[in-house]
């Protein structure tokens, strides 16, 4: 039991975030907002970044191609005046063109210009790291007399490699095919893009957090009053009927709070009314008790005095005195039972439990009822365990239940033996009373507890029962959180079982004694057809 509990607690501990997620609306809304806005911001950022980079590179390329075309025209013009490759001016012209074109670019950092002579010739015109700067694919393209461009990496004077755009164009001259390359460093473009990326990232992050914050704020506005309502409802349920919600403003939540408060006020009013009614009922019961009992006492005393002196009376008067005395006693029993049941109805019955020796209690009842048993000629068979049974019960109520059950058993037992069995379990005690009288018809086992119930209405009431005994006994058992149950079969007698928790406040899970007697015990004891009254 303990280990299960601790395991459950461990599980709960491990699942704490899950539990918090399930329980907190606010957490859920904020979480969902975080995830959803995060995805949206990332997607938007990627698209935006792509667009910007593409745009930047595109314009750069366009400018580069235009620049190269202009340079190509110039170079073509300059070089076309030359003769074949042995022209002594070739070297100088190449350098001049190169320098001129480079200088056209401005201060020199905008782009570099390379003019490469036909492959394998005029070494030294080309810089040594030309292969690093111009990708071989592009050179191949140019050598096939096509214009083209490529992205590459260019070494800076500091030895770093920076991204660059290389545009290549073939220059056809009498001296052969020259290759013209414009190298545009893309460092600034890259810097711009990375700046945009950083800005987008920061903005996106801030945006997501702000959205989450807003979501938290908005849900808080809704959740706080709902939580307050729940808290107030809990306190109301716990009986603090004066509890109310604070109404602020005129919005939907204010309407909720107002309705809630109206409900609470209505509940409180009704409770107060019920309490007042119940108080009046109790007062009435108590007053009736006193008001009826005092004159009844006088009548009873008078009846007893008359009864005691009946020997001196004429026979009719003497008989009247006897009837008076007997009926006053019956009236009193009825009044007592009526008051007891009305006390239960008013919810005024209080349990007065104490540690009680169950066998001693049973023995007292058996002793007190010995004259009744003798009157009906029934033998009483008592079965009790040897070890002492102590239970926390209200002894007066349990005695009353036992008196009732035994009295009924003698009355309906047709002179056959009545069995009283006491047993104790770990957390319950049980007492059964078994008779072998006419038994109960199907369905009667619950009806016997109804007020003024009679098994056979045609049968005249011969004995002194008030018709309330079993109803009161049932209430007595319930007040203990116990059970009082009946079993019966026509011709097989009946058995009543009282089960009470051994400790006050415990819940019953079972009874130490069976409700139905074993089969061989339930042998026919009386001819079928009769019924209990």
């Amino acid at each position, binding site marked *: 039991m303990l280990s299960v509990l601790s395991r459950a607690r461990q599980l709960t501990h491990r699942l704490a975030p899950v539990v918090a997620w399930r329980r907190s609306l606010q957490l859920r809304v904020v979480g969902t907002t975080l995830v959803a806005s995060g995805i949206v911001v990332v997607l938007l950022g990627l698209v935006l970044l792509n667009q910007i980079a593409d745009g930047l590179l595109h314009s750069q390329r366009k400018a580069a191609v235009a620049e190269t075309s202009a340079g190509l025209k110039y170079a073509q013009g300059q070089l076309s005046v030359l003769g074949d490759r042995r022209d002594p001016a070739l070297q100088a012209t190449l350098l001049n063109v190169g320098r001129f074109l480079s200088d056209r670019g401005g201060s020199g950092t905008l782009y570099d210009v390379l003019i490469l002579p036909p492959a394998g010739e005029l070494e030294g015109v080309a810089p040594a790291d030309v292969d690093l700067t111009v990708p071989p694919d592009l050179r191949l393209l140019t050598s096939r007399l096509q214009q083209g461009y490529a992205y590459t990496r260019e070494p800076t004077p500091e030895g770093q490699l920076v991204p660059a755009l290389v545009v290549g164009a073939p220059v056809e001259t009498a001296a052969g095919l020259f290759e013209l390359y414009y190298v545009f460093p893309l460092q600034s473009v890259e810097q711009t893009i990375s700046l945009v990326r950083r800005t987008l990232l920061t903005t996106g992050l801030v945006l997501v957090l702000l959205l989450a914050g807003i979501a938290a704020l908005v849900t808080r506005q809704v959740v706080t009053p709902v939580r307050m309502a729940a808290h107030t409802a809990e306190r109301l349920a716990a009986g603090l009927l004066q509890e109310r919600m604070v109404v602020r403003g005129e919005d939907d939540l204010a309407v909720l709070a107002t309705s809630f408060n109206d409900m609470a006020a209505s509940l409180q009013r009704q409770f107060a009314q019920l309490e007042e009614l119940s108080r009046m009922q109790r007062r009435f019961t108590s007053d009736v008790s006193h008001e009826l009992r005092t004159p009844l006492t*006088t009548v009873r*005393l008078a009846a*007893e005095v008359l009864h005691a002196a009946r020997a001196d009376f004429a026979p009719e008067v003497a008989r009247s005195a006897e009837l008076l005395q007997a009926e006053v006693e019956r009236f009193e029993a009825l009044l007592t039972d009526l008051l007891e049941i009305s*006390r239960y109805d008013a919810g005024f019955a*209080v349990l007065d439990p104490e540690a009680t020796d169950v066998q001693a209690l049973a023995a007292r009842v058996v002793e007190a009822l010995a004259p009744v048993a003798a009157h009906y000629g029934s033998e009483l068979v008592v079965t009790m365990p040897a070890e002492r049974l102590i239970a926390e019960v209200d002894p007066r109520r349990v005695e009353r239940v036992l008196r009732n059950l035994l009295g009924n058993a003698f009355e309906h037992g047709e002179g056959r033996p009545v069995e009283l069995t006491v047993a104790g379990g770990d957390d319950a005690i049980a007492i059964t009373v078994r008779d072998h009288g006419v038994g109960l018809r199907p369905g009667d086992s619950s009806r016997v507890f109804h007020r003024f119930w009679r098994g056979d209405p045609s049968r005249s009431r011969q004995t002194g029962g008030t018709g309330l005994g079993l109803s009161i006994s049932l209430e007595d058992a319930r007040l203990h959180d116990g059970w009082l149950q009946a079993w019966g079969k026509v011709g097989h007698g009946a058995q009543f079982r009282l089960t009470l928790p051994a400790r006050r406040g415990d819940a019953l899970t079972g009874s130490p004694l069976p409700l139905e007697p074993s089969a061989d015990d339930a042998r026919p004891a009386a001819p079928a057809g009769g019924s209990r009254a």
Partner: protein
Amino acid sequence: MKGRILVVDDDLALAEMLGIVLRGEGFAVSHVSDGERALAAFREVIPDVVLLDLMLPGMSGLEVCRAIRAESGVPIVMLTAKSDTIDVVLGLECGADDYVVKPFNPKELVARVRARLRRVDDGVPEALSLGDISIDVPGHLVLRDGAPIGLTPLEFDLLVALARKPRQVFTREALLEQVWGYRHAADTRLVNVHVQRLRAKVERDPEHPEVVLTVRGVGYKAGPP
């Protein structure tokens, strides 16, 4: 001597009927019908037993009970229409020795009155001691360290019953029979309340009794001598 009985009851018919029944048994009966005059009547009559209705006009029966108990240990039997625990216990705690619930029959009432009048005085000197408590039985005197403790006759009987057989456990029923004179099962709350009252007087700390001990589920016994 049959004894004087003071009936305090506002119901004149019942009071008259009580008078008839009790006089028939040979008692001298006086009657007073309201609480305010009850104390004066008590001082005048000096009864051997008081029959007291708990519900009285003017002063309530409980107050009358307390007032009488304040100046005398005379046996008080309550007449009550309520058998609810709280009412009975309240009455007993106010000093009543016993109670009968209306409607009672005359035999029951007379038995209760007789039991209260019965004083076993065989005159044999008997001295008992329980811890630092010493009891002079014929002298009806209880002393702790030489200082007398004022007990009502019923509380005295209860203490003597327990002290005569120290260490023996008495069930509530046995005490009811021995001290109250009930021959049949009766209300064990009588014993509970009177044990509490007795403890309040004889124990140094009634929360931790040393003279009258509870035996759970069984009853009571006198403490270790």
